[in-house]
């Protein structure tokens, strides 16, 4: 269990998101679940960036969306500013969205092609009654300036911008309501490498400026290293390791983390030469029927008989280094 700290802005307890699989000839009945997120517990401190890393399909995007209630969780609690978001409904929830925002992966798909930049960024201001008319326009221009875009762009359409610029627009939209918490769902993975750094820097700048808290989702460890304070590693709907950035990179405990890290190239030819590559065998198992015991046992180089039977406890291995592995 992560320590429920007084400074935690958001706390996730036992979060589960199952997508039902229905079957049935005439009446649809649930036969199984895709256990996309299967019991997560963690907290994010105010002003902190938590990196969430895992392979495609491990449930990290679902986690982000479930926290923001874009997918209603199957079970669990998401305590945000003293309220359990899972219990909120309708208008209450809608009002709450003012404090939490999201930045999307695909800067091309995440902006409505039929709205001008001004309308896109202005929409949150409008729906939360923050600003109207001239005030709204000024605010939008200000936001454009903040994210490093020309404020004259307000009347343009998304198709007239490059990917990096669009992502800046997406950031501006998220910032418009002055949120406390932003889920960054792989915000740079669709961008050119040259642009990625710009966006990362922008996000960092903004964090400092507005005292933001990020959940930063990424599929590889190299990206999150720079921006995260702490990092959680996910495998098949569960967090297998959660700790401080440096602890994770220097002393990974979970064999899966080790394997992931071994795939990250190191920008030092000497070290890179010595880098031991752990190649995982087999595919990621189906989340419909996850392996018994430790989900990772089918691919784990350290697999023991126990792993096949018992699900390892997610425990503190010292210095807030949480891990779920029998071998540790």
């Amino acid at each position, binding site marked *: 269990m992560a320590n429920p700290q007084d400074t935690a802005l958001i706390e996730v307890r036992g979060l589960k998101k199952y997508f039902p699989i229905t*079957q*049935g*000839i*005439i009446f649809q009945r649930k036969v199984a679940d895709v256990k996309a997120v299967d019991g997560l517990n963690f907290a994010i401190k105010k002003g902190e960036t938590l990196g969430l890393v895992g392979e495609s399909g491990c449930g990290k995007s679902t986690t982000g969306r479930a926290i923001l209630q874009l997918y209603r969780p199957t079970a669990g609690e998401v305590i945000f500013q003293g309220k359990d978001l899972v219990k909120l409904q309708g208008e209450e929830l809608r009002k709450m969205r003012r404090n939490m925002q999201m930045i999307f992966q695909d800067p091309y798909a995440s902006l409505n092609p039929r709205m001008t930049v001004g309308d896109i960024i202005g929409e949150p201001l409008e729906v939360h009654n923050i600003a109207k008319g001239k005030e709204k326009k000024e605010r939008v221009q200000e936001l454009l300036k903040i994210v490093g875009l020309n404020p004259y762009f307000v009347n343009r359409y998304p198709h007239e911008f490059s990917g990096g610029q669009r992502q800046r627009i997406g950031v501006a939209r998220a910032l418009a309501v002055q949120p406390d918490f932003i889920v960054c769902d792989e915000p740079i993975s669709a961008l050119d490498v040259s642009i990625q750094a710009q966006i990362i820097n922008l996000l960092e700048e903004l964090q400092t400026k507005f005292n933001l808290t990020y959940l930063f989702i990424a599929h590889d460890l190299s990206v999150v290293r720079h921006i995260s304070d702490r990092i959680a590693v996910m495998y098949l709907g569960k967090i297998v390791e959660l700790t401080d950035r440096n602890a994770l990179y220097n002393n990974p405990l979970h064999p899966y983390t080790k394997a992931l890290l071994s795939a990250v190239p190191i920008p030092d030819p000497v070290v890179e030469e010595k880098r031991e590559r752990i190649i995982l065998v087999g595919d990621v198992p189906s989340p419909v029927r996850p392996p018994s015991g430790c989900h990772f046992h089918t691919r784990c180089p350290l697999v023991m008989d126990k792993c096949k039977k018992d699900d390892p406890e997610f425990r503190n291995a010292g210095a807030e280094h949480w891990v779920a592995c029998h071998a540790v």
Partner: protein
Amino acid sequence: MVNYLIRRLFSMTIVIIVSSFLIYMMLNLAPGGPLWELTQAGSSRESALTREDYARLEKMLGLDKPMHLRYIIWLAGDDWLDGGTRKGVIRGDWGESWRVAQGMSVMELISSRIGNTIILSGAALLLSLIIAIPVGIIAAVKQYSKLDYALTAFAFFGVAMPVFWFGLMLILVFSLQFKAWGLPALPPGGTESLFGPDQGSFLDRLQHLIMPAIVLSLFQTASWSRYMRSSMLEVLKQDYVRTARAKGVIERLVITKHAVRNALIPIVTVIVLSLPSLFNGAVITETIFAWNGMGRLYINALTRGDYPVLMIFLLISAILVVAANLLADVVYTFIDPRIRYS
């Protein structure tokens, strides 16, 4: 897939039952009711129908019962209900015609027309395919050329022509004026000659088929060629076509081997969905060309208020439409391996 089929068949059944019930209700909504014609004022007191006669007729035809019961009897018979003699539609008793051919069983009546309708619709279907697919391909390959514009204009012409008007003009030119000009003329209508050396021969029937088939196929040809064109354009944009070209495959082969085959996939669905018309026939075309098919039977039954015929007709049509929808989905899975239903 099997589960999917069974589920679809079940929902099909429900859809059909609900639609048949709606049709039944609507038929019975019409003022005057089924016996209206008999009660019309005649010129002499000889033909006046007394109230007792009316009640007796109502009873004979089962119209004295409440609506929902009538529907159930129609559907499932009344031999189990009150010792009646009707077996109901679902057990093969389609009833007897009241007006179109009194006393004739509806099944016999429908089977007497369906052959002609299948011939006509089938010929039109074939004609449409033979013309529409090459036209669509050519228009797509030569997009924005003069030829494309010409073919587009042709297609729109087909869609825009009022069928009855176009049919009359064909008769005028190819039957009447050709004859007046001493050219070999086509028969103006009917399914075959009633006398003459060729009566009933294949050639004779073919001659009678030409004009109605052309008129009937016109709309389909036009719209299918548009479908084919856009489907083809879509495919030509795909990477595998570009790759094939890049590999140096000659253009003709690119078109025939790579593009056309894939472009046909959506067209097959369109064609399958038009299959119910093989049964329904084409009301207007059959009327204009005196083609003795289902469409004419339908209008005849509608104007004469032959309820048993109408009901069965609409029921079969509904079944066919729903079945064609299902078939289209199934055919799709066969020809497009990317789609799987579960």
